[in-house]
């Protein structure tokens, strides 16, 4: 059975909302560049979440209005941002004290590959000759208490991104706690990958078919909401 795996399941926004629902009130959160940034738009009413950006700001706010951009107020992706009331600035060593010292509660990252043991590959495509660039990714996965990955379940070429063993250079070993894809929410456990939730209309067999690692259903998992 063929389904259009890239269009099937949850939209990007629904994926971001799935992540946002799992971030408790009062959390300190670092959002990776790209899809992770969408999470900030879906914090449920009544929760207060504080965003950290590793280039030296705690209390990052949304994009500035047009014309109010400040080249000295940017995020880790070098985009213009704002600072909320109660924000503060600090230097890079202090910023990574927050990260390496396990003070950040949640980091949401994209992925090229995630293994069933929570290994993450998201910094290098491994192509020979390409300029390697790691930024803060390895620090984040080594230091943040909860690493959540948000990613399409399969590549544009239809290859599973959730695998038994990563083929690409690792960002960190056994670091991912939960994976949010367009098809499912997966928990990385000692016993392997557990399906917490599946996108509406999707069957377990279909999900397994597009995943290169054995899945088990969580006893309490719901097929959709």
């Amino acid at each position, binding site marked *: 059975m063929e389904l259009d795996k890239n269009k099937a399941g949850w939209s990007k926004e629904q994926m971001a909302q799935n992540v946002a629902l799992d971030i408790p*009130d*009062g959390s*300190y959160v670092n959002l990776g560049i790209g899809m992770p940034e969408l999470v900030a738009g879906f914090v449920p009413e*009544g929760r*207060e979440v*504080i965003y*950290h950006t590793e280039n030296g700001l*705690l*209390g990052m706010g949304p994009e500035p209005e047009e014309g109010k951009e400040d080249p000295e107020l940017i995020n880790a992706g070098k985009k213009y941002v704002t*600072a909320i*009331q*109660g*924000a*503060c*600035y*600090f230097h890079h*060593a*202090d910023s*990574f*004290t*927050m*990260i*390496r*010292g*396990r*003070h*950040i509660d949640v980091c949401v990252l994209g992925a090229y590959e995630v293994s069933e043991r929570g290994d993450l590959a998201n910094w290098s495509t491994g192509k020979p000759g390409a300029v390697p660039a790691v930024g803060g990714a390895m620090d984040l996965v*080594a*230091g943040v208490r909860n690493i959540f990955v948000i990613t399409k379940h399969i590549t544009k070429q239809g290859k599973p991104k959730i695998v038994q063993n990563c083929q690409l250079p690792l960002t960190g070993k056994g670091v991912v706690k939960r994976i949010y894809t367009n098809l499912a929410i997966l928990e990385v456990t000692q016993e392997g990958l557990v399906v917490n939730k599946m996108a509406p209309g999707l069957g377990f067999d279909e999900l397994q078919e597009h995943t290169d690692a054995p899945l088990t259903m969580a006893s309490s998992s719901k097929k959709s909401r």
Partner: protein
Amino acid sequence: MINKLVPSLAEAVNGVKDGSVIMISGFGEAGSPIELIHALIDQGAKDLTIVSNNTGSGHVGIASLIEHRRVRKMICSFPRTTNSVVFPELYSQGEIELELVPQGTLAERIRAGGAGIPAFYTPTSVGTPLEEGKETRVFDGQTYLMEHGIKADFSLVKCEAADRYGNLVYNKTARNFGPIMCTAAETTIVQARGMVELGELDPEAVVTPGIFVQRIVEINHPLDESKLVSENWRYPWN
């Protein structure tokens, strides 16, 4: 909503257990969170390991905590100050342990604990009795000692002003160990001379970002410890 302010000293020190490791800010009396220490005495936890630069003066603050036999071990750089009577007596009787650490090594070990650094190398105390039992290693022809990061279950810290996120500023040389101790504890408990609204602290001048603080109690008029010592007060007051 994030609001780290707790209504009482008792709630602030709630949860400290027998055997906890506790960092206490202050250099002498400057920056010592005396109200939090007294609340900890009232709370009753014992067998504590205390990390603090000194061992207290007279019969209040840390000295009183020690006098009440709540402290199994002190980790500090200068246990002997003018008016320090309680610790020396217990120490000479072998009733309290001491881990003596050079002041800069103590500061760096606390910072390392907070920054996820398990160990580092330092030139300090190489060739002295304090290198005993420590690993040495040569880098670029110079000998260094390996020292370990220290983490705490709780830090008790005094500051000048705080907002509900836990952003802190300090006053003059009362800053001393406060900012690094905030980073190194599972639960950091702060006594602030005043609470301010979010946004009142200049974001460029916040010394301790709120992420390092879990509980704040407002003590507008903290006791003057030096005065209590010179007047020979004892805690509890009766």
